[in-house]
């Protein structure tokens, strides 16, 4: 009894982002595709509901209507609503949001009667909000329109708070004037890439492949047109560096080049170096 109480207390204060029944078994959530082709899921908020909401990978935040916020006790006790556009009350913490098998705790939600949500509701019946990035980004999530099912497995990814991110971005862009980020390859390839600004064709030209380099050992030749590296398009020198910056120092990467008009598929094992 006592232990249970302490455990419960600990769970309340430790900011456990996710409480899944089984961390390996994915939580399953059924959804419905509305006539407007939006994904509709039913959620409960702090145990109240169910409410119909849209699951939207294009939404950076989660959104709840004023109705849900009132019914589910999302507003703090001393909260007094003022006048705001679309009843926009601001951002609040939601203690618990459930959909299907999935339980998520301590989620930021904007409270707002969004006009687009209203227009959608007029067409398809009540819609009380949107579940967005800050919820699904915590998981390895799958969306399957055929099975009409989503699955969620917790990961270590912590989505940034949108508001904080904005502030950070504003501050850093002031400070970082003229200071560009450098794209550092994980390992050595051994090529000198080239692309004219007037060159609109796919790929980049490997102007030079250094002898004895990992690139040479992989079979690359000077003059090859590199089309993809590690399943990424290499249509600019920057693209090549992005692909290499994602790779480990000794990674083996698949690649495709155009040589004498023919596609050649190779693999390169990077080496430590620069």
């Amino acid at each position, binding site marked *: 009894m006592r232990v249970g109480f302490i455990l419960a207390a600990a769970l309340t204060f430790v900011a456990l982002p996710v409480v899944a029944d089984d961390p390996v078994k994915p939580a399953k959530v059924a959804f419905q595709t509305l006539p407007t082709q939006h994904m509709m899921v039913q959620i409960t908020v702090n145990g109240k509901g169910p409410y119909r909401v849209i699951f*939207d990978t294009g939404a950076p935040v989660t959104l709840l209507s004023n109705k849900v916020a009132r019914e589910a006790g999302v507003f703090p006790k001393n909260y007094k609503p003022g006048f705001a556009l679309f009843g926009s009350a601001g951002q609040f913490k939601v203690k618990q949001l459930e959909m299907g098998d999935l339980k998520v705790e301590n989620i930021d939600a904007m409270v707002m009667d*969004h006009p687009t949500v209203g227009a959608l509701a007029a067409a398809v019946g009540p819609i009380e909000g949107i579940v967005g990035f800050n919820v699904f980004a915590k998981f*390895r999530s799958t969306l399957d329109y055929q099975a009409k099912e989503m699955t969620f497995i917790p990961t270590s990814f912590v989505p940034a708070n949108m508001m904080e991110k904005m502030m950070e971005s504003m501050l850093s862009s002031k400070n970082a004037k003229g200071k560009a980020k450098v794209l*550092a390859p994980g390992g050595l390839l051994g090529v*000198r890439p080239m692309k004219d600004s007037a060159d609109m064709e796919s790929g980049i030209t490997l102007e030079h492949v*250094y002898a004895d380099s990992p690139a040479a050992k992989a079979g690359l030749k000077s003059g090859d047109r590199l089309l993809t590296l590690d399943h990424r398009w290499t249509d600019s020198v920057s693209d090549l*560096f992005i692909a290499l910056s994602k790779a480990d120092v000794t990674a083996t990467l698949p690649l495709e080049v155009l040589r004498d008009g023919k596609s050649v598929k190779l693999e390169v094992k990077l080496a430590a*170096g620069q």
Partner: protein
Amino acid sequence: MRTSLCIALLALAPDWAVAQEVGKPHPVPYRLTDTQHVLVRMKVNGKGPYNFVVDTGCPVLIIATPIAEKIGLKTANGWATIDDLQIEGGLSQKKVKARIETPFQIEGMNKMGLPGVELHGLLGYTVIAKYKMEFDFTRDRMQWTPLAFEPAAPQGLAMKGGGGAGMDMMVGLVKMLTFIAGLKPAPPPVPRGFMGLEFEQKEKQVAIKTILAGSPAAEAGLESGDRVTSIDGKAVGDLAELQRATRSLPIGAEVKIEVRRGEEKIEAKVKLGQGA
């Protein structure tokens, strides 16, 4: 008869036939923007790549008007048919209907300016419903698995609104934060500079394994077997330290490399060039 037809199809488009196999997962590289949008790159009729937001809140594929004009898409009543739509990572679709317009959300986001990233459209239901999509933000790519599923044509609000205005309402639900002003784009990232050295860990030291002939490091007086002690004054004991010391040096930077050759101390200078 049936077999020969299949073979003929395979011969015509081997990549397509293999790549689009139902149930076979495909890597799809993505980028996460500062605005928390998931971007994938696509080529439209071979042109591009262009950046699209993966958006289940959008019922169709939307291409911004200036991009459609640049590609030379034939537009009728705000719609165009794309012959060949390629998604980075190897997936592709043929004869895809796209809505041609510039939703205010895209304009808003582009005004905010993301480092080196411009948005060119929204990737919605009619394209993405053909895949089982997996998102995992601890990995650098998504996985999309082709389904044997033909998404229904979009209907709904567009009909009611009678065209553009109605469509506007359907496009992406909550990009509202994009009106936040005052964000300035950071400059686009630049490639790191190139030396032409391969290193190896030798006990508790980093040794030069190979000096690539003709590379910026070739004329610096370094030799294979030299043990690197510091780079630009930063002590180097292992490959990770070396990587940290050199990771943000751009092209054109001059780097000071201190090595030991036997008991001899040698200092070399390398002006970094373009290469990887």
